């Protein structure tokens, strides 16, 4: 009952107006609003009734759908062996990074925090900005040193030169010397994961010698080409052992197809203004624009010569390269149509070819990268993923067991080499049959074997908080170099590049200094 009072007069009026029976009842805001409210109510009810997934003991975040599908197949095995349940969450790369960095920055021990998270190589730099002891990931050196210990049952067990193992029967350490296991009293422990995993692949995931992630891959790079089109042109591309020789072969190729009426058939795929591929070439020459000590190397003479050479590949009278139309599908379409006939191919790109470029099955071949100088590597590295444990996770030990299982167990290594065609960073796994098979997609060539042979020679790649900025700055220099070639030709280009690179180095140094949060390391 409403009682009359100074404040309730308006209430009473409102109620009277709204509750009075109308001859024709209608909703004052209109039918669309009623419909929307009804939809909200129904969908809300459906969501409320939807059963929540059971809570899991461990939570894994990944950005790659191929990884997620592999893990979902493998995890039942882990769950049975460990008596732990695991939830795999597939989260888009950008979303994963924003969520994880926000959680790390806030310092909140949020319930939804991952116990293990995969990070892509282009994203890891941002996580390394805080001082080492404040980085959001747990240092893994001690885990890598005390697990994955190599054991042998007898002295007849197989092994490779330099391996150290504990003989199960006597507990002593033996080392393979001249093909035989010899007792090694000078060695205190057998090989652990830190010795067994390819050393160069720890580089991107480390800061000041502290390792924050276990590498998933090696991603060696080859040059893949359309063997049918090069054969038709009478060009033996594999005879090119250096980049300048390759440019000559590509010019021959272009001239042939232009005569045949295909002026848009390009020998090489290289972008005009993005420095991503240029960075791959620099790594091949063992140049990181920013090294692990955050020293800058723009003024290394190799950088100027590589930029000038690259600019000559994509612009000017001796141009042999063109850009892909776009993402993976368009890129594969360009290859199938014969628009782009040779391209840098890390192992993950080879699996994309198998998936998206079916029309060229049997028409592709691979070769090691040509070099600039004899001391360059015959390969490079492009891309990468690590898995790490957030410090704030409450299940460090269990998370480590999960990482060991998903990254380093035999079942996991078999899956990675088989379906995904990704070379794992564990050299002893490269002898598995999956890495020895002939590949019909590449005309019967043993491409995984080629990848594993090159994997041992990949250069070290470092990632720092300013690595992305350094690559963007190199893109600016590349853009200037291609514009220079179009205007003035190649005369004086390298000298001009040196000048631009010196400016770029000064600019990045200034940014590095401004962004630095910790004391400058003493070099």
């Amino acid at each position, binding site marked *: 009952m409403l*009682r009359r*009072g*100074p*404040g*309730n007069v308006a209430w009473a009026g409102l109620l009277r107006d709204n509750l009075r029976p109308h001859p024709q009842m209608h909703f004052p805001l209109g039918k669309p609003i009623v419909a929307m409210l009804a939809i909200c109510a129904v969908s809300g009810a459906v969501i409320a009734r939807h059963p929540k997934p059971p809570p899991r003991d461990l939570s894994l975040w990944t950005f790659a759908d191929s990884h997620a599908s592999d893990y979902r197949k493998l995890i039942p095995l882990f769950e049975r062996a460990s008596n732990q349940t695991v939830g795999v969450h597939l989260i888009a790369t950008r979303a994963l*990074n*924003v969520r994880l*960095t926000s959680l*790390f*920055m*806030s*310092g909140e021990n949020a319930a939804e925090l991952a116990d293990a998270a995969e990070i892509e190589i282009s994203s890891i730099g*941002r996580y390394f*900005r*805080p001082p080492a002891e*404040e980085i959001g990931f747990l240092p893994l050196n001690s885990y890598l040193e005390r697990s994955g210990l190599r054991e042998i049952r007898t002295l007849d067990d197989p092994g490779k030169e330099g391996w150290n193992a504990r003989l199960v029967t006597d507990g002593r350490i033996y080392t393979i010397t001249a093909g035989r296991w010899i007792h090694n009293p000078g060695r205190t422990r057998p090989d652990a994961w830190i010795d067994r995993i390819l050393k160069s692949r720890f580089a991107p995931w480390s800061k000041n010698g502290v390792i924050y992630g276990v590498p998933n891959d090696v991603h060696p790079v080859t040059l893949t080409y359309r063997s049918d089109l090069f054969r038709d042109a009478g060009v033996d591309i594999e005879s090119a052992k250096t980049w300048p020789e390759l440019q000559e072969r590509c010019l021959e190729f272009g001239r042939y197809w232009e005569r045949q009426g295909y002026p*848009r058939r390009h020998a090489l795929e290289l*972008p*005009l*203004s*993005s420095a*991503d591929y240029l960075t791959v070439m620099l790594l091949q020459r063992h140049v990181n624009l920013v090294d692990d000590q955050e020293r800058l190397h723009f003024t290394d003479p190799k950088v100027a010569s590589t930029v000038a050479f690259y600019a000559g590949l994509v612009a000017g009278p001796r141009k042999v390269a*063109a*850009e892909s*139309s*776009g*993402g993976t599908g*368009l890129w594969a*379409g*360009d290859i199938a149509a014969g*628009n782009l006939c040779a391209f840098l191919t890390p192992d993950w790109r080879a699996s994309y070819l198998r998936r998206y470029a079916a029309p060229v099955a049997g028409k592709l071949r691979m070769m090691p990268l040509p070099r600039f100088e004899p001391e360059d590597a015959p390969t490079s590295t492009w891309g990468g993923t690590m898995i790490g444990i957030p410090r704030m996770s409450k299940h460090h030990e269990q998370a480590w067991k999960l990482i060991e299982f998903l990254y380093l167990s035999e079942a996991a290594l078999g899956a990675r080499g088989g379906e995904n065609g990704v070379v794992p960073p564990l050299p002893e796994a490269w002898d598995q049959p999956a890495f020895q098979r002939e590949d019909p997609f590449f005309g019967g060539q043993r491409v995984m074997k080629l990848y594993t042979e090159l994997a041992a020679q990949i250069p070290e790649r470092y990632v720092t*908080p*300013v690595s*992305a*900025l350094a690559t*963007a700055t190199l*893109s*600016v220099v*590349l*853009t200037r170099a291609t514009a220079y070639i179009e205007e003035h030709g190649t005369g004086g280009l390298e000298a001009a590049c040196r000048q631009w690179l010196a400016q770029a180095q000064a*600019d990045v140094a200034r940014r590095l200094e*401004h*962004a630095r*949060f910790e004391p400058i390391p003493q070099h």
Partner: protein
Amino acid sequence: MNRQRAWALQHRFAPYLFVLPFVVLFCVFMLYPLCRSITLSFQSSVGPRMTRYVGLRHYRFLVRDWLFWVSVGNTLLYGVLLLAVQLPASLGLALLLNSRRVRGRNFFRFAFFSTHMVGQVFVAVLFYVLLAPRSGLINRFLAAVFPFFDVETNWRGNPLYAMPAIVLASLWLSVGYGMVYFLAALQGVDPELYEAADLDGAGGWSRFRHVTLPGIRPIVLFLLLIGTIGALQLFELPYVFFGGGGSPFARMTIVMYLYEQGFESGDLGFASAVGWALVFLILVVAALQLRAARATGEV
């Protein structure tokens, strides 16, 4: 007596209670972050727990940073190019679809406006494919119509074409939006003014210049102001379209610069300083526009 006092209190405090939810939400999610960002802009940080007071260092760095000025230049160029094409195109469409002689006007009005409903990310993905070298529909069309146009033109990779590509995509998104406002404004112009103009012997252009244009001036000003502020906040479209790669010369806008500092580099303090520089820029541009409008008697 007590009951009367209770009613009096209710009468006095009821309005405050009604606005309380908004005030609380506004303070927690708007006012506090705004104030916090001011203090953050004077700090270097790797998260709220780790900050270091740096005074005006971020602002000093900002005004000397060529990349910031490139991003300001790109953003202003985008705004000028977009508004220079968008406003006349929207007005032209509105005039066309306001005419009784056009059949299916409602369908066309919806069709032109519908592009605005899909959002910038969708448009970026769409134009990524439409403007692809060789296979993109726009490239193929332009090469078929203009023989000198190279079908391999890379709109995303070539710094010369990058901004026109973004403007093109934005036009597709926003011309219909402007059209709706102009339609509403055109329908608000007093028909008697047209009749009077007819009696005075005014032609089509004179009617437009002396009757239509003065009638829709407030909407022109409104669209100019909203368009300028939107242009200064440009982010999603180039961010998705360019994918973060390539030369920053062509693709960098002020908000992209802010995002890269805050979320890629992780320096929320510097990003806050960029944010406040953007606020200042928006205020200056808006004030200049309002002043120009006052000078011409539009407000």
